């Protein structure tokens, strides 16, 4: 008897979206001011501290820097770490209403 069952014990494969669309957890969205972002100003790969600190790997390095909002949970670490203060966490309207 040989058991062939991918579900015999719990496991998951590393894949984009394995944990679901975590973007809808967000109550504030990071917005990059490209006029302040160091990579954009220098017009070449530079700084990328937001990418380095992002715990979910949703920062896409490039010029300009982009953030994958499908999966960004809105933790705000990128905004906290940005040396140019180029990232603003914009609170969602429905969250503001609650406050």
């Amino acid at each position, binding site marked *: 008897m040989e058991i062939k069952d991918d*579900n*015999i*014990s*719990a496991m*998951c*494969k*590393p*894949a984009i979206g394995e944990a679901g669309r975590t973007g809808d957890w967000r109550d504030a969205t990071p917005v990059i001011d490209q006029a302040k972002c160091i990579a954009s100003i220098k017009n070449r790969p530079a700084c990328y501290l937001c990418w380095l600190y992002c715990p979910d790997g949703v920062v896409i390095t490039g010029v300009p820097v982009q953030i994958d909002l499908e999966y960004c949970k809105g933790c705000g670490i990128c905004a906290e770490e940005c040396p140019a203060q180029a990232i603003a966490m914009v609170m969602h309207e429905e969250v503001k209403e609650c406050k």
Partner: protein
Amino acid sequence: MQVKILTGNQAAAEAVKLCKVQVVSAYPITPSTSLTEYLAEWIERGTLKAEYVRVESEHSVMTVCVSASTVGARVFTSTSSHGLLYMHEQLHWAAGSRLPIVTCVINRGVGAPWSIFNDQQDSIAQRDTGWIQLYCRDNQEIIDTVIQAYRIAETAFCPVMVCYDGFVLSHTMMPVEIPAADKVNVFLPPYKPHTILSQEAPRNINPVIFPSQRRDADGVLRDGYMEFRWKLQNALEGARDVIVDVNREFAAVFGHDHGGMIWDHRIDDAEVCIVGMGSIASEATTAVDVLREEGIRAGVVGIRSYRPFPRAELREALKKAAAIIIFEKNVSYGYEGALCADLKAALYGTGIVAPVHNYIAGLGGRDVKATELADAVRSSLADIAGGVRERQTWLNCVTEG
């Protein structure tokens, strides 16, 4: 076939060597036993090609076993009493991960107060962890059951505890036939894990599982917590057939038949059926022979597999019993012996209405002689003649005043 005079622990160690175990982890201090010492020595000498992982606790022992089994090694450990209790959390992890780990439990009492001596409270306390539990009655059965345990575990993908009574078997010498290594190699092919881990297909083992089924990133429907737990239950229920088949095949190859789920002694015409597991059931066979000489038609049904529980086998074996007398070395505090409770539940709705008397015996190493078991049976028969259908007696225990 080679015959050696061995203790139960030496018999188990010989079996581990024959099974070509690749990783042994142990916390080699009390309450561990000489079993892990033999393995440590053989691995150090190179006569057993395995890795011996020394850790700081039994909790870590089982963690090492889980890890090594996950990546495809055949693993072994053994422990007793408090060591087993300390392992408790990781026992659940091993079973939930469906890993075919084999652990010898050298049954000993638990504190408080301190005891180093034999009873079965330690393994009974692990009853609901999802491990198969097999109980042995002599040293031949220990060596044979460890070999069978790997076949059972690696077929059903459930971990197996091979339980045997501390000191009564673990430190007592008996002649043991050593199964031939070439035959064991055929009987027990190398272990193939159910999930192969590789760099090409990385996986996260045992992530947080949500209550309900859900689709993964590829759209494949994955089980929720209850589905996994049902599969574990189903695997243990299904392991009955595996245990019976493996015993039958082992008997055909090696000539030793220890029974599948249960074994019996003189039960064909028995009116009085003694039920027990481990060495106390073996002792009861001597009591039965004495009672038979007095004209009492007695027999013994020995539990070999306590989990999965031999529901159908007991119903069949006890269907003609006029009295059922259970001797056991454990108690479910606030109720009765665990075996008694399970056995009575198995008889529910079957039409078997024999009185069931429960003897709690031999706790913390208190000696139990065959003559005392025979006296208990005579006492129970007198009670049953007087209409006493249920009885709980602590054998050889001062319970007055």
